[in-house]
């Protein structure tokens, strides 16, 4: 589903050249729950941003479902993100002036293939799934951190994207809320066969991942399947 070949990202900080990613190559199968792990500065968020079309690599290739996403125009990338991808950010990144319902339905409202009724129904459905249907008219500031992150997940999955990206979604949560969020990802992954790519540095999160890639200094140092979890279908399972 996702093919990455010799992906390199170099940042220039004054005269210093920083190789955030250094020739990363891998494939991610459809339906995989992939954990990208590593210490701070290892390049995991950079990799996630490249995969999520939020940043351009210095060199290398990324294809998603056969589409060369690096060479898409700005507008095509936006539409790709809208129709194919979902994002969950570390700090929830909800629009503070919109209610829970408005936040969740925002991207659905932009899709040309959704009627108003479908938007309402799908938003209600995901809000029920994350347990926040009763709080749909509240503003983000009226919710706890865990609840906000669940709204963020609901927003990411409302369009039933092919791939869900999560950048340290539990970083600001206590262990109870973290587990709730991870359970949600697991359910989404299993129920809808959505590919989930999650960045984390918490070792105990590994119990939820099918496959774990560890990075150090922009390079993959290990890539393996987790024996405790159900393995996904596709090439990665080979």
């Amino acid at each position: 589903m996702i093919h990455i070949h010799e992906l390199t990202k170099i940042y220039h900080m004054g005269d210093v050249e920083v190789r955030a990613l250094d020739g990363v190559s891998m494939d991610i199968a459809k339906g995989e729950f992939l954990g990208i792990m590593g210490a701070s500065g290892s390049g995991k968020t950079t990799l996630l941003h490249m995969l999520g079309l939020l940043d351009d690599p210095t060199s290398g290739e990324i294809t998603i479902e056969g589409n060369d996403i690096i060479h898409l125009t700005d507008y095509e990338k936006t539409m790709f993100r809208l129709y194919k991808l979902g994002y969950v950010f570390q700090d929830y990144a909800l629009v503070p002036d919109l209610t829970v319902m408005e936040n969740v339905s925002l991207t659905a409202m932009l899709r040309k293939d959704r009627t108003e009724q479908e938007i309402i129904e799908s938003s209600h459905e995901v809000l029920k799934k994350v347990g926040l249907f009763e709080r749909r008219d509240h503003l983000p500031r009226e919710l706890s951190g865990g609840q906000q992150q669940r709204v963020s997940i609901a927003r990411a999955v409302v369009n039933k994207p092919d791939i869900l990206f999560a950048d340290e979604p539990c970083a600001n949560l206590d262990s109870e809320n973290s587990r709730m969020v991870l359970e949600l990802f697991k359910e989404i992954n299993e129920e809808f066969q959505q590919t989930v790519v999650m960045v984390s540095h918490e070792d105990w999160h590994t119990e939820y991942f099918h496959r774990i890639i560890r990075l150090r200094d922009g390079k993959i140092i290990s890539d393996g399947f987790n024996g405790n979890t159900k393995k996904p279908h596709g090439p990665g399972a080979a």
Partner: protein
Amino acid sequence: MGKKELKVAFLLALRSLQRGSRSSVILTVLIVAMCFTNMVFLPGLFNSIGQVITKQVVDYEVGDVLVSPKSGEQYVTDLDATLDLINSMPGVERATPHYSKAATLKYHQRIVGVTARAITPNDEKLISPLYSKMVAGSYLGDSDTGEVIIAKMIAGDPAIKEEYEFQASLGGVRVGDSITIEWANGYTKDYRVKGIYSTGWWSADTTVYVTKTDMEQVEGKTLDYADYITVRAKPGYSQKFIKDELQQYGVAAKVQTTQDLLEKSMGRALQSYAIINMVSLIVGIIITTVVLFIVITIKTLNSRKQIGILKAIGVDKEVIMHNYGFQVIILALLGISCGVIMTCILMVYMAYNPIVTPDWSASLYLTPMDLLSNSLILFTAAVIAGYVPAYQVSREDIQSAMRS
């Protein structure tokens, strides 16, 4: 940019204003409203002054059209024939001659120099509202002799000492009192004050009116000439029409409309008013533009991360730009609406409490078209001011925006 995108942009804008900083919204709306009021206040005041002066000039000086002596001549001659000709023309309400002479008024120990104007009172009624401005006594009749009407300002107030007077007066003349008029040619006679008037127009309020019959006594001959003839047009006839008609009919004198005269006499003043109006307009536009530019720039700078997030989740940059654009449109519409309301309140207030000077009393004169055109100018400036930072921030790279 489809309907769905615009709907989302509008939703984001509306919610940002509804649920964002209320004080910021109120302050911005107030500033736009004040700018609008500032833009229209001076032009409205000058319009009103212009209207009042024009009306006073028409009412008390020259009528709609002035027939004055030809170049090199002192008087309009062959008066009766000329008046008959003018009065017979279609569109002419009435024509009446004015003949003025310098005079000195004496009453007890007071002496005041004035211009005395000879009129034909009944004809004058069709030209000037002077007859309706009597504050004491009554207006002159055509057959009156030995009687004058004088301005309240000339009659004076006995309660005000001479040294404190703004304008020299006779110190409290009342209707029925006798005053002595010493004319420029040396003729002196006592006249009974028949009435006292007040017009609010300086020139009329420093004049004494006598009948033509009395002036003929002063001159010692029949007056078949006049300083000028004032002509009033019937409703529906323009000054220009009357002027052209008089010239076509071969009136042997110089014919000018009030507009011609005002353009000559007040051309400089009108130009100055136009400059002040322009400065006021430009200042209003600049202040509004700068304020809205700053407000939207601050909003976008404070929301850079959110803008990055919105782009990341698939919201197009056009939606983000129009979100801020709609915010400016809403702020500008609210501000302009408040400005129109404030201006209307000011118009009503000033109608009851005009600015009064010896020459004119002015309020705010603004037509719906004035309000509409200024609203459109301010709205356009506001939208440009808001869209510039919105355009800039919507083009920003996702990574830079999200890192901020």
